[in-house]
């Protein structure tokens, strides 16, 4: 039972990082209706920015982390401006957008591999901040911090989307982009904002993942988990992404704790295929069939 509780705590902490990622991914999906395969590269850029900013002696730690998150957000907005917008204004098929996204991901990740190198580096932060013991369950402060930051970010995002004018404009775009633009909503500004937010969330989880594992060009591969979480919750649904992320983190930790960590990823990817084939609308999703 103790072991179960311990795993559950760890799982929920990883799940909260997944949830953050999945929300960033789902936000773009809900509005632009395409799968942003370049999502992981923003994560990687955030992680590397944190690595270099933290190493430079003149920048204090808090400023370094904020700087890296802003760089992550900027990278995502720039990707939108350079790669996606020309296709979006031409109303290109989704196929082209997905190929572009794969291209952006290849370009950025492989550039880092060639220029900086593919080796794993530790983020110059204390990797263990300490442990709180609740009975016989130990909670690492890192995990607690990840969960807290994810929770606060998600709450802030929810407030922004539900309570502000711009948030309402974003929600309008997610219903129907062309109608929204007819109503005078500046779609380009919305696109910029949405991608910047998504990049910010990617960078937050990128920094957390880098601190938990290591900084490497492949840190963005974890964004595949965001696709899975998002599918479980229903693609394009933000509450679905949160629930899907928490669920995926929880189940993954249970699998690695009680079965074998070798089968963790296999389980997740099989779950992705099974979920897409049998429950493509997920838990909170809309009807996903090709519509007339």
């Amino acid at each position, binding site marked *: 039972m103790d072991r179960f509780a311990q795993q559950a705590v760890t799982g929920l902490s990883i799940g909260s990082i997944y949830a953050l990622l999945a929300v960033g991914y789902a936000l773009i999906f809900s509005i632009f*209706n*395409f*799968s942003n*395969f370049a999502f992981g590269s923003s994560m990687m850029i955030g992680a590397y920015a944190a690595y270099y900013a933290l190493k430079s002696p003149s920048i204090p730690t808090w400023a370094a982390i904020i700087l890296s998150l802003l760089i992550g957000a900027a990278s995502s907005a720039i990707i939108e401006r*350079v*790669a996606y917008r*020309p*296709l979006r204004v031409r109303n*290109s*098929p*989704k*196929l*082209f*957008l*997905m*190929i*572009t996204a*794969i*291209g*952006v*991901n*290849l*370009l*950025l990740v*492989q*550039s880092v*591999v*060639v220029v900086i190198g593919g080796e794993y580096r530790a983020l110059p932060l204390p990797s263990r901040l300490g442990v709180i013991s609740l009975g016989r369950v130990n909670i690492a402060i890192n995990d607690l911090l990840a969960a807290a930051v994810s929770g606060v970010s998600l709450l802030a995002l929810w407030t922004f989307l539900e309570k502000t004018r711009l948030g309402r404009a974003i929600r309008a775009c997610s219903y129907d982009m062309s109608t929204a633009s007819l109503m005078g909503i500046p779609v380009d500004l919305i696109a910029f904002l949405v991608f910047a937010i998504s990049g910010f969330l990617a960078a937050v989880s990128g920094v957390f993942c880098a601190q938990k594992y290591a900084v490497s060009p492949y840190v963005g591969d974890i964004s*595949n988990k965001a*696709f*899975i979480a998002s*599918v479980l919750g229903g*693609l394009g649904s933000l509450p679905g992404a949160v629930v899907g992320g928490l669920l995926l983190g929880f189940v993954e930790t249970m699998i690695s704790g009680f079965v074998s960590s*070798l*089968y963790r*990823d*296999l389980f997740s*990817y*099989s779950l*992705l*295929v099974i979920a*897409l*084939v*049998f429950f*493509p609308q997920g838990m909170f999703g809309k009807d*996903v*069939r*090709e519509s*007339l």
Partner: protein
Amino acid sequence: MRYLLGVASVAGISMLATMGMVILTGYTGLFSVGHAGFMAIGAYTSAILVMRFNVPFLLALVAGGLLATLCSLLIGHTSLRGRMRGDYFAIAMLGFGESIRLILANTKPVIGGAMGLPGIPQKTTFWHVLVIDIIALILVRNYVKSQWGRNSIAVREQEVAAMMMGVDVAKVKIWALAISAFFVGCSGGLWAFFMTYLQPAQFSQTRSSDLLASVVFGGMNSITGPAIASFFLAFVPELLREVAKWRLVAYGAVFVIIMIVRPQGLFGYKDIGFEHINKILGKLGLKRRRYADVSQ
């Protein structure tokens, strides 16, 4: 010479896979980042059939391709029958490709797990590849010129309109997927007997992007374009060793640039056929005079 034939074999093997992607992505407009999975299935199946069961080489290749097709029918039937949207299909294929890689990496007996499968006899020669490629080219050309090819183009351009015209959209998509899986699976088999060892890491997402590259470069509605592109992409890193490490960076950049500037690919809607060869011959003054010289 042996070296050149080796590079040409690699090029031909990738061209065979490209032929599959031409039908799937080029003509039917389905996008997949998981086709490395089909390649892995074909490679491992044919390697094991030859090494363990002494099945003849060519038969093993076909068997590998057929198993890949079977898997594609399983996933294609369940996902595309339900009229899954294109972007969902892409994500499903991502999950499929990664699942296959992880299953291979976690299966120790027979296939060696993550360490891989060494000691595969080298059986693939350039002449095998050449003959198989020619057969594949003819088959793909026939597919594209047939009613099936027309239906595929209709589905890619306007799915709803195609449905209204009575095209069985799901069927067209499933068959395109199955055919592409067969080609990619066979090319995996050829690859296994060329490289002589297999490792699950060889079939990562990067390989799927590799498979896609020739189609994107060569053109979305062309057979010869991607075929030439796949040769070009195999030879360039060999000729320019210095820049070979930038290969994937360049792929990414070209993906983005092509989609923005020239989404129909370098060759666009053009195919090189016999009429072009005739035209070139004509320019060289070699064209057969078909008509009597009326002017005289």
